[in-house]
Each structure stands twice: as C-alpha cells, then as structure tokens.
C-alpha cells in the first residue's frame, strides 16, 4: 500500500464511527419512514400492508394539507425574515466599539441556550388571563380592557408564535453574522470611503455581499428548523385556537400520536423532507451561482 493510500485509509477509518452513528440514527429511520409511508401501518395494524401511493394521494388532495403548508411558509418567512433583519442589526451594533458591548455579547445568547420548553412555559405564564405578567401590567396602567389570554386569541396566537421564534433565534444570527463582520478586511471600507461611498452604500455594497456565506448558513439552517419546528406551537397553543397556529409539523405529530396512523404520518414527514431538500439545494445553488 502506497503512503497516499495509507493516508486515505486512515482518513476513512477516522470518519467511520461518525458515519456508522449517522447511518444508525439518521439514515435508518429515514429509510424506514420512507417504506412505512407506502403502508397502512398503525398502532392497531402492526402487520402493515403495502398500499402504494394512497397516503400521498390522500394528503395531496386534502385541502387541509395545502392550508397548513401555506401557514408553515408564512411562519418560516416571517420568523426567518425578522430574525435576519434584527440579527444583522444586532451584529452591526455588536461590531461597534461601544462601552459594555463585551458583556452584551455574552448576555444576548441567553434566549438561545434556554430550552424551548422553558421559553414556552415562560411565555405561557406571562400571557395567562388575570394573573399573567402582561395582563397584570395592562391592568396596572389602566388598560384592563385589553387583557386576554393571548395564546387563546386567534388574532394574537400566531404573532406570538413568531415572536417566540424571533426572541429565541435572533442571538444566533447576531453572533454568526458578527463573526462574519469581523472577517471583512478593513481595507474594503477604507477604499470605499476614499471613493466617497456613504454608510448605506458601504453596507449594501460591502457588508451584505461579504456576509453572503454566513447568511446562507444561518438562513438555510433556520428555514429547516422553523419549517420542522413543532415544540413551540405544540407546547403553547397545541395548534389552536380553531387551528389558527396549526402547521405541517404539528400535523405529523397529531397523525402519529393522536390518530396513531404511522404510515400516513411517515408520508407527511417524507413530503416535508422532500420540500426542504428542494429548498436547500435551490438556495445553495442560487448563492453559488451569484458568487460565480
């Protein structure tokens, strides 16, 4: 064996445990779900029969599916959009040499490290009728007529879900983009200033293009996470009231754990995976082609 082959062999050997673990924990369940999606597997029918594409046909011809798909896209668009805009703003602020900013860099990560369940419990207690913090504050400032159970109001439940997403994830954007800002050579800005570029021009023609790759990473990651996110909604509103916060991820859960229809739930999961795969490939290709 040549030295080069030996090095390659060692390389494969080193990544083998990780690959095996990946295959066991990710690949196997995905493949199993793919096969289950063509069966009528359920809690009450544990010897599943092959039913072809029936599950997919039922889902794709169900108006509920398209309604939930639309709501999921709105959630992703709003949450990721707001997170990005606020994340860039915060990153620019962190990049300024302001007093105490070092401490701010540590503190802003707190929402991101708090478990989702704690975040939801915290929000839930804050918006409870009568003795929730928000309602008590409203009462104390003479706005008692505005008090309500905010998660129980169809007009506010969805915006609150978006707020929780933004509150939790914005620090991750800020820190990632802040790292990107640090890697932009100062010479770019100096040259632009000599050419007479103002602050907005420097931001749009230097900062944003230079943040393209970190932006791509955080946006792709958060589109995937938000699209698949289940816990924020399930723990706070359960998908209600009157279905106003129901999305595809909560539908998968309901199909699997309320109706115990594992075949149908797998089909829905596979559809979601396919949609996200198409998005990820298209987005990465778009960014790369732009770069070229």
């Amino acid at each position, binding site marked *: 064996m040549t030295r080069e082959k030996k090095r390659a062999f060692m390389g494969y050997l080193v990544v083998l445990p990780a690959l095996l673990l990946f295959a066991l924990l990710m690949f196997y369940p995905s493949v199993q779900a793919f096969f289950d999606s063509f069966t009528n597997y359920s809690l009450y029918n544990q010897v599943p029969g092959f039913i072809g594409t029936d599950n997919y046909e039922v889902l794709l011809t169900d108006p509920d599916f398209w309604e939930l798909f639309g709501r999921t896209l709105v959630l992703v668009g709003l949450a990721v959009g707001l997170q990005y805009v606020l994340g860039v703003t915060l990153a620019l602020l962190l990049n300024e040499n302001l007093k105490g900013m070092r401490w701010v860099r540590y503190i802003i990560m707190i929402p991101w490290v708090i478990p989702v369940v704690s975040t939801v419990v915290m929000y839930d207690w804050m918006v409870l009728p009568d*003795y929730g913090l928000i309602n008590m504050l409203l009462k104390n400032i003479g706005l008692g007529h505005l008090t309500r159970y905010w*998660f*129980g109001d169809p007009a506010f439940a969805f915006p609150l879900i978006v707020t929780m997403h933004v509150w939790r994830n914005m620090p991750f954007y800020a820190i990632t983009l802040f790292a990107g800002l640090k890697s932009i050579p100062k010479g770019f800005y100096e040259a632009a200033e000599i050419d007479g570029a103002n602050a907005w021009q420097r931001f749009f023609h230097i900062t944003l293009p230079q943040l393209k790759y970190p932006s791509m990473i955080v946006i792709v990651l958060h589109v995937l996470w938000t699209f698949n996110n289940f816990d924020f909604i399930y723990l706070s509103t*359960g998908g209600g009231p009157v279905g106003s916060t129901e999305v595809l991820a909560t539908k998968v859960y309901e199909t699997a754990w309320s109706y115990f229809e594992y075949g149908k739930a797998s089909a829905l999961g596979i559809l979601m995976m396919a949609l996200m795969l198409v998005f990820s490939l298209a987005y990465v290709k778009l960014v790369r082609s732009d770069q070229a």
Partner: protein
Amino acid sequence: MKRSVIVVLLVVVLSLFAFSKPLTLWHTQMVVEWAGRADVVELFESSTDQDVEEDYGPALYREALQKFIIQSKTGNPDVIELVLEQMFTLAKGNLLLPLDEYWDDYEDKDQYYQNAVDALTFNGKLYGVPYNTNVRLLLYRKSVFEENDLEVPGNWEELINTAAYITKNIDGMQGFMFTTKTREVRAFQEFLSFYFQLNKHMFEVADDGVKVVAKKEQLEQVLDLYYRMFFDGGISLNERGADWKALDYGYTSGNYAMVTVGPWIWGHRYEEESRGDVLDDTGIVAIPVAENGTPGTYMEVKPISVNRFTDDKDKAFEIVKDVTSKEFQFLMDSQAGVLSPRKDVMNMPEMRDNWWLSGFAEYMDTGVALDPVSWEQPQNLIIEAIQKVIYKQDTPEEAAEWLLNNLKRVAKSL
C-alpha cells in the same frame, strides 16, 4: 462427581442471579413533584418484595404513553400507571396483558367498587387495577354566594344566569370558567361532565364495530351551554382558549366563583396559604343538571396495567398489588386529596371524616365512565367543536352537526 455437581449447580444459580434483571414500574405520581411523592416512594420501596428499578419512568402521561408504544415489546416497563383513555388505546393496540386470570385469584378483589373495576374492562377483559378515582363536581365560593344572597345553581339555566350575574356585579370575580384550549384533555372532560346528563354513552361497542349513539340535539345542547356561558357574560371572551392552569390556579387565586373540577385541586393549599383559604371557603355540589337530563358526570378511574410483553407476568402482577394495596392507596389518595376505588380505604376514618373527600364521595354514584374506545380522535373533535362555537365560526347547531358527522367518520377506527 459430587464436587462437579455442586460446582455446576453453583454456576447455574450464580448465572441465574447474574442475569435476573430488575422489574420496571412507570408511575407518574412517583416521579412528578408533589407533596406526598417522597412518602409514597418510600412506602413502595420498603413494602415490595420484588426487585424493582428505582427509576419510575416519565413524569407526564403523554410521554409515558408514547414511550410505552415504542418500547413495550422489549418487555420494559413491566408495569405502567395510566389514565383510562390511554389504557383503552393500549389495550386496543394489543400491548397490555388481560388481568382476569390474576384478578380472579386476587384476595382483595372484593374490596373494590364494582363500577371502578367495570370501567377498566375492554372487549370483556380487565386491563387494569384501579388505584384512584374521582368525579367532576361544581365547586363554588361559599362566602361569595352568602354575601350576595345567591342560590347555588341547580340547572343549566340557573348556572348561566348566576355566572353572568357574578361576572357583571362582583368586582374582580368571574362567575364560571371552562377550559377550551386545543388538545386540552380537561376541556374534553368538562364537555362530557355535562353531556353525560343527556346520554350516558357517546359510543356503543358492538360485534360489528363502534357506533355513535350521541344525538345531534344532545351535542347541540351542550355546545349551546358553552355558547351562552361565553356570550351571555358568564365567562369573559378574553379567557377563551385557556388551559387547566388558568382554571385551577384562577379558582384558588380567588378569580372565579364556580368551576367544575375534581378533588386534586386540594393540593393547591400546599403551594400558598391564600389558596388554602379559598379551598376552605369552597362548597361542593353536583354539577347543575340539564332541564331534560338526569344526574351524571365524568368519572375518572386511573389504572395500573401490565405490559403484555413482560418477562415475568406473575412478578409484574405482584407489583400491581403493591401499588394498589390498602396502605399504598390510603397514603397516596389521602395526601393527594382524591378518592380510592377500595371500600376498605374509603371506610377509614381519615377518609370518611374528611369533609373534602366525603363531599366528592357523596356523588360517586353519578359518575359515568368512558365508553371503552380509543378516545384520542373524539377528544380532539369535541374540543374543535367547542372552539367553533366560542370563536363564533359556527352556531351550536352547525358545530353539533359537524361533530356528529366527524364522530361517525372516525368511529370505525376507534
């Protein structure tokens, strides 16, 4: 020769000892934090003769159900504490052991109230031993009623009017409260507490499958109660979509004059003194009865069941006996403030002379157990129908028709 036989026997015995694994019990009340948890765990560990792992599983019923479905075929856990709805689901999924054979030989079986045991029967077989039971009743603030010269409501019309009067006229007090959050099991239980006055069954389990026996008019009548309670002023519209926390803590905070709950709310007195004061000021009566109905309310029975795939059925049933024994039930139920399905426990002076427990026990015979079907889908449909009404998406009549049609649609899969 003798020596070799002894060595072989020794090896066999040692290997048996080495390979015998402890049994597993999942019991939420031995995990979740509450005032009596440590005493209950100590009693179990000191009284059982079985080798049982000291990890008592997930703290939440839903999590326990899901994990049980996934891993029950490994034989772990051997024994599980459930809520009734879940027991039917697992029995239908063929994951629980029928206990009739063990029950017939069980020396304490005559100590159990028959309606509690009957409630745990699915397709003619017994799938659990009951360890705690309760009924939903109307709890009201005695001082509020006395000070305002109000009569405790006896029917639905009086309930709606009294609730509206209190909300309108007593500052900082709401007359009544319903939980109406999506997928909130309490919302479904409250609905049934009123529905059971009109019909003691929602489904009929026949040889050819499950049939819906609820009538559209009955569903409409209950949904109309919800509509009027919110839109006639008994409950603020701003409290729509609230869950059990809002109801339980709202009542013991002194915000509501009347609620329909079970006896567990007694435990709030250990959290704050002021909540204890509210509970001491509480009257317990039957839920107001519909003008065309008969007394009836949701009866909860919690079972201890055995995994069908346990390695040792006999030992597993011994654990069931340990966590349903007279001493165990007395300790757990008296500390939690709930009722025991055992006559010998309920006849103990500490239980019999307790005003709270005797207040609930008085109405046990009006309790109606759930029909033996998988309730997950009906539960979600009922809550959806309630929400259609209270968010004014449908009239009670339209929502009742929608609910009935959907119950019929899913009946065959229950």
